[in-house]
């Protein structure tokens, strides 16, 4: 029987992702999604206080931590930052690889860390037309560490081969990435609601390195669209310390916007309405 826990899986994922952000460097949110942003803000409040955060919304530079917001992000960043860039500044820094660590949240990720946010099915007549890769190819081409996350680990999201490569990982594995001219950076981790994968640098394959408390390897296998490779020193994902959980609840995301990435589609509208109303009352 799993023991009663003092945190939920969204908080475990936020804390796990937050550990990836380095202190003293330029950091930004590749994924304009609540969980990725919450992880960055938690890092800013804890171990990465001297990181220079450039917000992708508003392109504000050296932005202090703020509570996650649905409609007021521009206000939050504009009133908590030292300077402002335009898109040319940001992409110059980006293309040079200044944002060493970037989180992305694609609809699909495969065993070689390729990511897809473009289509499910055939490109020209897709079963599902997704919003588009946006910065996925950009992140995947030049940043040192690509951290991929998904809150819905299933055989439809963690797949053997993505339907479309929006963001290149190790492509077909081996040295395929290098042969394509991608000589910088690589997928570094996949963090899901069930566990964490690293990558075998030789083969480019994802390797399960930890499972979250209460999750078993067979459980992860059932949810994964390819035969798992499991690290010999497989661990349990460390639990978030209570002070980090408190920071998430009180300072990073008091409106519980992070829950949007976990609720079933049919409950999403109701949750969005509740968050809008809470924000208006705020």
């Amino acid at each position: 029987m799993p023991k009663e826990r003092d945190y939920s899986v969204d908080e475990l994922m936020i804390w796990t992702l937050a550990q990836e952000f380095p202190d003293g460097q330029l950091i930004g949110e590749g994924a304009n999604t609540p969980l990725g942003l919450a992880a960055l803000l938690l890092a800013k409040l804890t171990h990465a206080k001297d990181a220079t955060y450039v917000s992708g919304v508003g392109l504000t530079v050296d932005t202090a931590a703020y509570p996650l917001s649905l409609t007021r992000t521009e206000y939050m960043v504009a009133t908590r930052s030292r300077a402002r860039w335009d898109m040319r500044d940001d992409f110059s820094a980006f293309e040079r690889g200044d944002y060493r660590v970037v989180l992305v949240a694609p609809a699909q990720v495969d065993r070689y860390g390729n990511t897809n946010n473009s289509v499910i099915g055939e490109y020209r007549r897709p079963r599902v037309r997704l919003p588009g890769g946006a910065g996925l190819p950009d992140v995947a081409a030049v940043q040192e560490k690509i951290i991929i996350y998904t809150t819905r680990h299933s055989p439809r999201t963690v797949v053997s081969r993505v339907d479309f490569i929006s963001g290149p990982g190790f492509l077909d594995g081996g040295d395929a990435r290098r042969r394509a001219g991608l000589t910088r950076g690589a997928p570094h981790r996949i963090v899901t609601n069930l566990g964490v994968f690293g990558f075998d640098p030789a083969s480019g394959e994802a390797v399960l390195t930890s499972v979250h408390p209460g999750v078993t390897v067979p459980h992860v296998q059932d949810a994964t669209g390819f035969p798992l490779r499991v690290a010999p020193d497989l661990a349990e994902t460390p639990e978030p310390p209570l002070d980090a959980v408190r920071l998430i609840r009180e300072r990073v995301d008091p409106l519980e916007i992070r829950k949007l990435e976990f609720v079933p589609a049919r409950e999403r509208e109701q949750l969005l309405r509740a968050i809008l109303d809470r924000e208006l009352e705020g």
Partner: protein
Amino acid sequence: MTPKVVSLEEATSLVADGAFLAVGGYFLSYHPVALVRELVRVGKRSLRVLAPLGSVDADLLIAGGCVSEIHFSMISLEQFGFAPNFRSWIEAGRVSAIEYPESVIIAGLRAANSGMPFGATRVGLGSDQLQLHPEFKVSGCPLTGEPYVAVPPLQPDVTVMHAPRADQWGNVQFDDVFLELELARASRTVIVTVEEIVPEGAIAGRVTIPQYLVDAVVEVPFGAHPTGCYPRYVFDGWHLLDYVAAGRDGFDGYLERYVRAPRTQAAYLEAAGGVERLMRLNRLALGDRAHA
């Protein structure tokens, strides 16, 4: 100089059927949605639309049957969900989807703006988006031999964008810009809708886009609604929920209620919740009490 102030309807005459039309704004902010509604009302056809990070703007043009090709890096309503018409029209094969990596759009605009034959970027190598663009070429750097993607100049016929303010001569001031300056430089024709037309002196010395790049200015308060125009108003989350819901019902009801029936911006704003709603969006933009 001649003043460049025109009406919404006059502005649409600068957009020919079949034009390559770029639309400004990013995520859920600063999209020229009032002008987009007018383009739908007057029935533009076969537009090739470039929406780098599009939302309601691109989605409404698609819903109105104005678009043959959509060029983009992402079209989304962010946390509110998929852009419903973008999704359904492409899935039905009624619009061609031509996806780009973000940096590749920027490389194409930079090439156009510096008079270079191509822009170079590492971004796109290994990505399937490259297969959608026979006009790109992967080529070795002439100095090091390293592979790069060569992107030809990206030159819209017309760009439409929304800004907080401009003077009557077409000097435009933004508080926050995405690709607007790049788009204005790259485009043959530039139409700017603004929250307000201000006296010349009010923005002198702090102009983002100088008048020589601008062809028409239209004063349209709340012209970005239901997207936002910080610090005046935030995007309208309540409206976006209704927008997504309308997508589940075929969307005709939305088009009738918010696009075809209201002939003026004032009538549209009344239909969209009137003064009470606008004050709410304004209050959210002003921030918490400590800063209000």
